[in-house]
C-alpha cells in the first residue's frame, strides 16, 4: 500500500480535479447530461433527469473535498463507488452493442469504449489507494485524522 504523503496528495489532486472539471462541464447543461444518461437506455427520462441534475453536483462536492482534504476518505469512497459504477455501466453498454457518447465531460465527451474503462480503472486505483491508505496525505484544510 502506498504511504508516501506526496503521492497520496497527487492522487487526490488528480482524481478530485478530474471530477471537478467533469462536474463543471455538466452543471452548465444538465439537460444535455440527462440526455446522455437516457442514451444508455437503462433508465427512463424521469430518472435520467434527476441523475442529470444531481450527480454533477455530487461529483463537484466530493471532488472538492478530496482535493482540500476535508472528509477525504469518505470522499474517496464516494468517488470510488461512482467510478466502479461507471466502469460497470460502460462495460454493460459495450456488451449490449450500444454506440453512445459517455457523457462524462459534457459536450467534450468521447465514446463509451474500452479506453474509457481503462481511464476509469486508473482513477479508481488512485481513489481506492487514497481511501485505503493508513497514511494521511498532505491536506489543504481540516485537522489531521
Amino acid at each position, binding site marked *: 500500500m502506498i504511504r508516501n504523503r506526496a503521492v497520496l496528495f497527487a492522487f487526490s489532486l488528480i482524481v478530485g480535479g478530474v471530477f471537478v472539471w467533469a462536474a463543471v462541464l455538466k452543471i452548465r447543461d*444538465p*439537460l*444535455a447530461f*440527462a*440526455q*446522455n444518461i*437516457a*442514451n444508455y437506455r437503462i433508465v427512463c*427520462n*424521469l430518472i*435520467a*433527469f434527476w441523475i*442529470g*441534475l*444531481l450527480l*454533477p*453536483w*455530487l461529483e*463537484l*462536492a*466530493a471532488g472538492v*473535498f478530496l482535493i482540500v482534504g476535508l*472528509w477525504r*476518505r*469518505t*470522499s474517496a*469512497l*464516494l468517488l470510488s463507488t461512482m467510478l466502479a459504477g461507471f466502469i460497470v455501466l460502460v462495460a454493460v453498454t459495450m456488451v449490449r452493442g*450500444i*454506440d*453512445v*457518447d459517455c457523457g462524462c465531460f459534457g*459536450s*467534450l465527451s468521447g465514446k463509451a469504449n474500452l479506453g474509457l474503462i481503462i481511464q476509469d480503472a486508473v482513477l479508481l486505483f488512485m481513489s481506492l489507494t487514497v481511501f485505503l491508505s493508513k497514511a494521511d496525505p498532505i491536506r489543504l484544510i481540516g485537522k489531521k485524522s
Partner: protein
Amino acid sequence: MDLKKTGKELAAIVLIAFVPAVLLNLGLIRRQLRGDFDESLLLPAGTPGVAFIGLAEAGDLFQSGAAFFVDSRPLDEYAEGHVPGAASVPLKEASENTALATPEALDVVPNRTLIVYCNGEDCRTSVLLTRILREAGFSDIKIFLGGWAEWRAAGFPAEVGSDKE
C-alpha cells in the same frame, strides 16, 4: 473504518451537493413536474420548428432537393461516408465555435429546411447540434433519428471524402 462517522460525512456531502443543485435548477424542476420532458429531454413537446423524421421522409426530401442535410458526426466519420451534399458540422467543433453553424457559414438561407443527422438512434449529437442551429437563426429543422446507419443500410446514395481534409 468508523461506519457511523463515514455515514455522517456521506450525508453531509450529499446535502451540500444537492441543496445548490435543486435551488439553482428550480425552473427545470418545474418544467419536469409539468411533463415538459416526458417525450424528450432536449426538445420539449411543442418546440416550434423542430421535428423528428424517419428514413422515408428524409429520402423524399433528399430526392426532391427540398432540404439541406447537416452531418453532426466528427469529420473523420463524415469523410468515410455521408449523405451527398451534406455539410459537415461536428458537434464538438460547433459547441466550441458556434459561428460554424450559422446560415452564413453553411451558405444557406435561415428559412431553408435543414435535416440534421448523426450515426443513428443511439447518438444524440444531431439533437444537441439542433439547439445550436436554432440559436444561430435556423427556423425549420428536422432531425433524422435513423441517421447515417439507417441511410447506409437502406442503400441510399452516399458520398465519400471531405473538402475540409
